[in-house]
């Protein structure tokens, strides 16, 4: 990923492709945009868009009027060769006009202010009966804790559909910002403080998120997912998450992977409930709990596997890439390059993939 190319070469290779892409995009329309805030999938994001669009169209009208006036003025009153215009009237101002263009914008702004303030108070704070999920920001991944059930997970926040969810957020290190564009706006995660974010998904689905506040080297690699499911699925998910990790079959590749895990530096930071159960206090760096690693479908700050609908092969390729060299994918990463052999990586892939 960090491989360098000469810029000229790089551009010459990309230019035709991107140009083509731009044309294709123009002709055949929509591209999947999992972070698109216009494509709201819940009432909170919806309310924000309902507020945004009228303001946008209002602004568009003002835009057309003002730019139109400017163009007309330039067109009407410009000097052209051969066509001398008379000397203009020296108008120093016009109180009535000036009053109008002070008062009218004030009225327009007041008209915007009313829904702004009401929507703001409607959306800013969680209702009392919301389901709570604790969100803890780390460089560069989100941790999710469910106080009701005791589930601890990372990168993927699972919520039931049609349910008011309140994310109670804080940070373990620097500022982060939790943004699930299709479900809600942004809210910071501040070390030493607690902030709230309302989330609500109308339907089951996979909603992308991104850390939006600059949080150091790998800010770009700090994403998240919110997975909404039916309440039955959610209960099943919760029950599964509370179980200890599956023990691999004796003699399997996965068991070899477990040995690599237990014998290496992994256990310095990671927990797999059932394989190693260290005192969390003794861990060097906070790192994702891997007990149900494979159930999440994404890892490395929800950036791998990169595909929208990854296949098993994508998953394994991503995992190999990550295990071989974490800092290259995620510069600054607290997981160092471990110097694993290809053999060890294969074993770990098998083991981690089994941790449903």
């Amino acid at each position, binding site marked *: 990923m960090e491989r360098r190319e000469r810029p000229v070469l790089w551009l010459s290779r990309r230019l035709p492709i991107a140009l083509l892409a731009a044309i294709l995009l123009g002709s055949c329309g929509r591209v999947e945009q999992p972070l698109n805030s216009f494509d709201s999938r819940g009432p909170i994001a919806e309310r924000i868009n309902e507020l945004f669009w009228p303001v946008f169209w209002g602004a568009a009208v003002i835009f057309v009027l003002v730019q139109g006036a400017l163009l007309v003025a330039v067109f009407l*009153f410009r000097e052209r060769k051969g066509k001398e215009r*008379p000397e203009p009237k020296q108008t120093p101002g016009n109180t009535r006009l000036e009053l109008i263009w002070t008062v009218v914008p004030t009225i327009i702004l007041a008209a915007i202010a009313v829904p702004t303030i009401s929507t703001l108070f409607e959306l800013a704070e969680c209702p009392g009966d919301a389901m709570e999920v604790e969100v803890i920001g780390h460089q560069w991944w989100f941790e999710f804790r469910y106080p009701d059930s005791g589930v601890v997970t990372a990168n993927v926040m699972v919520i039931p559909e049609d349910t008011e969810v309140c994310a109670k957020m804080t940070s373990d290190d620097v500022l982060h*910002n939790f943004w699930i564009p299709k479900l809600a*706006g942004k809210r910071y995660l*501040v070390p030493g403080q607690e902030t709230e974010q309302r989330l609500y998904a109308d339907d089951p689905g996979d909603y992308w998120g991104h850390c939006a506040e600059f949080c150091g080297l790998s800010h770009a690699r700090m994403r998240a997912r919110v997975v909404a499911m039916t309440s039955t699925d959610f209960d099943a998910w919760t029950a599964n998450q509370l179980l200890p990790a599956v023990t691999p079959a004796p003699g399997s590749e996965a068991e070899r992977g477990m040995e690599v895990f237990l014998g290496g530096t992994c256990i310095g930071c990671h927990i797999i409930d059932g394989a190693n159960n260290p005192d969390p206090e003794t861990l060097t760096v906070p790192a994702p709990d891997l007990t149900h690693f494979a159930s999440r479908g994404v890892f490395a700050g929800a950036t791998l596997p990169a595909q929208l609908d990854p296949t098993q092969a994508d998953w394994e390729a991503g995992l190999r890439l990550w295990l071989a060299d974490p800092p290259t994918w995620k510069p600054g990463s607290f997981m160092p390059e471990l110097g694993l052999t290809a053999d060890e990586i294969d074993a770990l892939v098998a083991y981690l993939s089994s941790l449903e």
Partner: protein
Amino acid sequence: MAIDVAADTVEQAETTLFRRPRLTYGFWSWITTADHKKIGLMYGYTAFFFFLAGGIEALLLRIQLAGPDGAFLTAAEYNGLFTTHAVTMIFLFVMPISAAFFNYLLPLMIGARDVAFPRMNAVSFWIFLFGGLFIYSSLIFGTSPPPVGGNLPGGAADASVLGSIPNSGWFIYAPNSGATYSPGTAVDYAALGLQILGVASLISAVNFIVTILNMRAKGMRLLRMPVFVWMTLVVALLLLFSLPIIAIALFMLTFDRQFGTLFFVAEAGGDPILWQHLFWLFGHPEVYILILPAMGIVSETLPVFSKKPLFGYPAVVFAGAAIAFLGFGVWAHHMFASGIPTVAQAAFGLSTMTIAIPTGIKIFNWLGTVWGGRVRLTTPMLFSLGFVALFVIGGLSGVTHAVVPSDWQQTDTYYIVAHFHYVLFGGALFGLFAGIFYWFPKVWGRMYNEALGKWHFWLMFIGMNLTFGPMHWLGLQGMVRRTWVYPEEAGLGAGNFVVTVGAFIIALGVLVFMINWSYSKRRGRVAPNDPWDARTLEWTIPSPTPEYNFAVEPTVTSLDDFWHLKYDEDEEGRAVRKEKADELVDNLIHTNGNPDHEIHLPAPSYFPFIVGLGIMFIAYGIMYHTRPYGIPMLAAGAFVTIGALFAWGSEPLEEVGDDHHGEEDDLEPDGSEASDHAEQQH
């Protein structure tokens, strides 16, 4: 009660070891100058040099982002470049190039021979220059290891050269900017460098305020000042009241990093959000510091090229002042997502909306100025009209930020990047280019090339819209700010590619400008003295400006005094050029170009340069105070600075034996040192 000036000077000379430099040309004359015009040019050239650096940084960023998963830059390099791009464009380009305009034009527009404190003017330039060099010296000396415990690709201990420039965003948010998360010196270069630049700005602010209050031509009441002068005053006041706040914030950050204080260390009870409050309490007025000079410039150019007075002059002036005043009450709109109380969000949302009112007044008054005029579409006029058009877009997207819940979606995305580039690139930069072309003949006595000027405008205008227009959509479609890569799956590739193409078109425009500038200032057509049929005092003197500005100090009887010298109005209110206008103008300019006596000008001095140098070494000393060479460096810097200030104080008023000295005690006192005569004659 008058003391004999000559005797006083001799007495001074006896008490000092120092002779004042006397050179008026060549390298040392620039180092030692106290002439506001030379200082203005130095500000301009330095700022433009930094503009090129910032522009190259922007292009590198855009190459990286041209397609998804770019591999042109590393994460560290990207972070360094986007931070330094912002720091450069804000503090090393727009602010100093505005200072260049203030310096060169302010005395000319108010009919003075120099600013109130010419050597302080020089010192603020040198401090700025050394501050800028200090920040950029991080390219060589800066270090940027990963956060404590983290790992860089390939196990590297430190980021590459480009990764070691300031890299925590221009807003330097705590705690990411703290010692744990940003070890190394990259952030120190930003914190200390901005501190140095702040000192420079503060000195100029004091200088400009005093100059405007005290040194206007006879009869130039406050409401007869050109709008540009008004905006200079407002900007200086904004600087005066916002710089101390950022100074404190930067001291806190520096102390946290260097001396173990805990202001922003969350684990120890520090408050990271406090940084944001302090930063934006400065940072929002700063936005107006950047834009108001450009607003002042187009308020000069639009009337001239429409042949009409500014529509609603008092309203435009008061709107500018109102923007500045309100600008101190809106800072938390940068923090709507930071978890501040809901009531505070509501209050700051409302206060932000109110800013749109005076801004609207300005825009409508500019429209009113153009309407019904005789519009000459010269390059400066095109840039001024471009300014209005683009600023409207930036202003409208600004209103959408005040809609707080919308801002929760917009903040920290490219939508914001689009907004402030429309305001600062489409706004400030277009206004500044309008000014550059408008006053080009004044500075060089030659005309710029109109054809190249128009190419420059259209390339910039098209490039600018291609670059920053799509960003609105990209942002709301999920393009997060300050990310060195975006995944292909986010579906943002095509838009980003257009943006990159636009950036290169802008670069082409800048190239055309550079050709125009360097060609025209030597070979351009010789400019008439009043090429634009202008309205303000700077056009009543020969071009290029003589060293003494005005041979005869002007007296002003109305707003746009120069215009009324040339034009009457008929019964309908139409302008009628006076019969003798040309003759009057020629006479005026001839008189102003041929003083009948020698005019006293502020003497050059070595010490402003030395003070600037000393301050830079103090900053290095603080940063490296734990190294063996740090404290000596600090001591040497402090010694040089204090010594230079002391020497400055003991400098003779002028060189003993100056041939012309003594014979002009009876003449119009002028410039700065002569002011002592005035004082003594009270």
